[in-house]
């Protein structure tokens, strides 16, 4: 036991030296998110985006004449690990942090960054209270919050599609249930339609036939679903098999190529909200092609947002002229920056101005933006 | 001569498993100071009878009455095994059931559980009373080990004891519950003649010195005939005979039952 403890101590010492040794003169960009485990696909693209951005910036002379150093930490999307991750980033002296990916992990970690006065920017945490509660002045994000999506989806269902009876489902998760609850609230507030069904489905279940039957029974004209693409594909497939034709409206978690590829024909005609189409933005094309040359595949979820967040953070440091917390925050809130998600700055709650949503529809296996 | 005090009185005990009647209205008494024996061929229902009396099975029919000296009569039917033991009736098992990964001494100490009472909180506080009780448990258990001749092995694991010693340890463990009636299920099984002779003495000692009545199931006829009286004989779930060793030896039914078994074997 004693020996093992000594060994551990030695290991920690070595690691401590290894990470802390070259602290000299770099700008440290922390990157936190799930890089292992089942949620890794949501974290790795943003991490790779940060790597690409840093590589490019360092090649052109860095920020404020200093090289940018990446501190990458895995939080597995778990709040309890995220606090460790955050502490680690703070102790290693991260000047700014790109992350976290999941809202829960972000919430858990933010307190630590706040105490340490580190600006944090998430490419993906869409949970509304993160900005709206005002608890986290150091938090920013390059993605719009869930309530905006829900509002857009509900408006679309009621005003464009003109449905009166809406079923609202979610996957019992933080993201999906949050979206669904906002959707329910907005539908009820509108007074133009009613929620005929509000339920959570069990992720990973073999089929959703019962719930599809229920939608039919309750004569819903539209289904608003909050959650991610695996469940969404199962839902639309089940609806197609059961010959149930109702409008399917969902969120950004579903606007994923996998949805179209997994659900196939069943996905045709489905609506979903997602960040505005970015293909016309030149920087977006550059970023994507950078990714493709580097990794040979298409970038995954939250790549553009991650890329944008890395750019915005480093740009703010450049603009502020130092890594001082107040100066960086001020720069984030006042100076516009060109990113793959558009030219943005942040409002005083931390949400990006100029980032918005559109409604998309699946058409011939592609997402078509509806204007 | 005055009638001997009956400690255990079983009347018309019947036990069915599904359609199978394992014990069929067996009546049996064990009186104070007796070493009674229950014999019979394999599968006659002797162990099932024990299991009914000790509460492991709930009998289908019949009465099991316990008459502790100076206390009210208690009906044991349907009581949980631990309640039965608390009332002063302890047992050993045919297939040795020791706590293999505990030491020999600890095995006996477990037997003291129902006669002691420190609870969780007092154990945590480890008050003086608890410490005294612990010490008392150790002393009593150690004395019992000495009685069965296992004192030298007190700190061995029970699983490492030789077979005969394990049987004696089971007896010591049962004795630790302060019974007035001890049920021994084939205590001599697997023992060599010398060990059996020692066991013979041990059982007599328990009966005489500790004034504990004994009911034993045994196949070793020599042992049974030596020490027990009365003897009850079971076959196919039924009691076919009872009486003194001599009466049993001469009983034609018993002879037939045992001869039948021998041709089987």
């Amino acid at each position, binding site marked *: 036991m004693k020996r093992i403890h000594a060994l551990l101590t030695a290991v920690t010492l070595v690691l401590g030296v290894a990470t802390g040794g070259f602290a000299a003169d770099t700008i440290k960009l922390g990157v936190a998110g799930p890089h292992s485990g*089942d949620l890794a696909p949501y974290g790795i693209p943003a991490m790779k985006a940060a790597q690409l951005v840093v590589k490019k910036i360092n090649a052109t002379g860095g920020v404020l004449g200093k090289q940018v150093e990446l501190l990458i930490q895995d939080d597995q999307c778990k709040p309890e690990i995220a606090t460790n991750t955050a502490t680690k980033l703070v102790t290693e002296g991260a000047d700014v942090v790109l992350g976290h990916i999941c809202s829960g992990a972000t919430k858990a970690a933010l307190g630590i960054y706040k105490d340490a006065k580190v600006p944090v920017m998430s490419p993906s945490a869409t949970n509304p209270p993160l900005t709206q509660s005002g608890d986290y002045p150091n938090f920013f994000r390059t993605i719009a919050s869930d309530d905006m999506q829900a509002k857009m989806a509900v408006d679309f269902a009621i005003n464009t599609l003109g449905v009166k009876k809406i079923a609202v489902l979610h996957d019992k998760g933080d993201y999906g249930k949050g979206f669904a609850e906002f959707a329910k609230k907005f539908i009820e507030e509108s007074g133009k339609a009613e929620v005929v069904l509000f339920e959570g489905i*069990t992720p990973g279940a*073999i089929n959703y*036939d*019962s719930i599809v*039957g229920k939608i039919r029974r309750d004569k819903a004209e539209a289904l608003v679903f909050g959650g991610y693409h695996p469940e969404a594909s199962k839902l639309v497939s089940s609806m197609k*098999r059961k010959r149930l034709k109702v409008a399917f409206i969902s969120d950004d978690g579903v606007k994923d190529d*996998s949805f179209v590829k997994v659900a196939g024909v069943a996905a045709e005609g489905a609506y979903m909200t997602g960040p505005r189409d970015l293909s016309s933005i030149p920087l977006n094309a550059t970023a994507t092609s950078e990714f493709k040359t580097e990794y040979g595949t298409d970038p995954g979820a939250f790549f553009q947002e991650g890329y944008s967040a890395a750019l915005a953070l480093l740009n703010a440091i450049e603009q502020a002229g130092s890594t001082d917390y107040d100066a960086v925050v001020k720069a984030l809130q006042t100076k516009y920056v060109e990113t793959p998600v558009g030219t943005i700055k942040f409002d005083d709650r931390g949400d990006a101005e100029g980032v918005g949503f559109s409604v998309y529809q699946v058409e011939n296996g592609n997402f078509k933006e509806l204007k | 001569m005055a009638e001997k005090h009956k400690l255990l009185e079983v009347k018309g005990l019947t036990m069915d*498993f599904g359609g199978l009647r394992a014990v069929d209205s067996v009546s049996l008494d064990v009186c104070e100071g007796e070493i009674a024996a229950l014999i019979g061929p394999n599968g006659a229902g002797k162990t099932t009878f024990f299991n009914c009396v000790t509460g492991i099975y709930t009998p289908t029919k019949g009465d099991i009455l316990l008459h502790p000296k100076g206390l009210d009569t208690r009906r044991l039917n349907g009581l949980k095994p631990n309640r039965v033991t608390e009332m002063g009736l302890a047992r050993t098992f045919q297939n040795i059931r020791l706590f293999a990964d505990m030491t020999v001494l600890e095995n006996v100490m477990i037997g003291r559980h129902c006669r002691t009472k420190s609870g969780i909180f007092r154990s945590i506080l480890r008050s003086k009373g608890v410490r005294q009780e612990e010490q008392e448990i150790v002393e009593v258990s150690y004395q019992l080990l000495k009685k069965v001749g296992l004192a030298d092995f007190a700190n061995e694991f029970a699983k490492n004891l030789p077979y005969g010693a394990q049987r004696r340890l089971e007896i010591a463990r049962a004795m630790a519950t302060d019974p007035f009636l001890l049920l021994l299920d084939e205590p001599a099984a697997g023992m060599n003649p010398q060990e059996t002779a020692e066991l013979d003495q041990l059982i007599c000692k328990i009966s005489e010195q500790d004034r504990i009545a004994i009911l034993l199931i045994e196949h070793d006829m020599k042992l049974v005939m030596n020490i027990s009286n009365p003897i009850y004989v079971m076959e196919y779930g039924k009691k076919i005979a009872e009486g003194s060793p001599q009466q049993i030896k001469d009983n034609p039914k018993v002879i037939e039952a045992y001869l039948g078994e021998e041709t089987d074997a």
Partner: protein
Amino acid sequence: MDYFLELFLGGLTRGSIYALIALGYTMVYGIIQLINFAHGEIYMIGAFVALIVAGICTIYGFAGISVLVLAAIAAIIYASAYGYTLEKIAYRPLRGAPRLSQLISAIGMSIFLQNYVLLAQTPDFLPFPSLIPEFAFMEPVAHIVGSSELVILMTTVITMILLTLLIKKTKIGKAMRATQQDMSMARLVGINVDRIISLTFVIGSALAAIGGVLVASYIGQVNFYIGFLAGVKAFTAAVLGGIGSVPGAVLGGLVLGWTESFAAGYVSSDYEDVFAFGLLVLILILRPAGLLGKARKQKV
């Protein structure tokens, strides 16, 4: 009435899958009294192998139900091989060890296999090519039960019949039953118990693979994590029906499928899992041996 029928058939589909996986649990448990925690992973591996074969075929331009059959055969072969190896590595050296050790080993194996597939393949959900054609004759009732459900039901029924025949009629089946009754006795009468145990794992794994292929093609997606929930549910089904009993596993699977389906349909799918596990607890308290299990009298 349509609604009821829909729920009933939905539950039946689900239940058939549970039953197929539950059989593996029940057979293994019957013989070596071990909850083979990694069984769900075998199911997942079956689905993944099928995906790989079917994927290659469709990418090179083959399609149709014959590809599905080919994928299923590959899945069965590989799942069986994994089941066999699993037993040899993780369980055989532990024969006679305390139950708890065996169970831990099983849990460890489950974690290992899950991560093995994650690392060797991908964490993403992969689409499974749709290979079951829409049968035209199903169209009038398709809103209640479709072609793929029909395929699942038929496959399950055929598999069950074959399995029952295997156990009841063949020499291997007899040896399996004997081993289940009393392992040391079976050994005495000259049955190679180790071989029978291996065989049980192979058969159980093959059944899981069939379930895996059916589910993969039914829901159209596969990832490394699908085995966990399916495994837990199937185990629940096995216990529900009476673990160790083959008809019990089938009944348990169906009862569980219906419970979930009706609970979701008539109450709320929020608490679907609560109903499933609540039922399990209830059964175990009221009838610990399960619906069809025989209460084994404890030997004293």
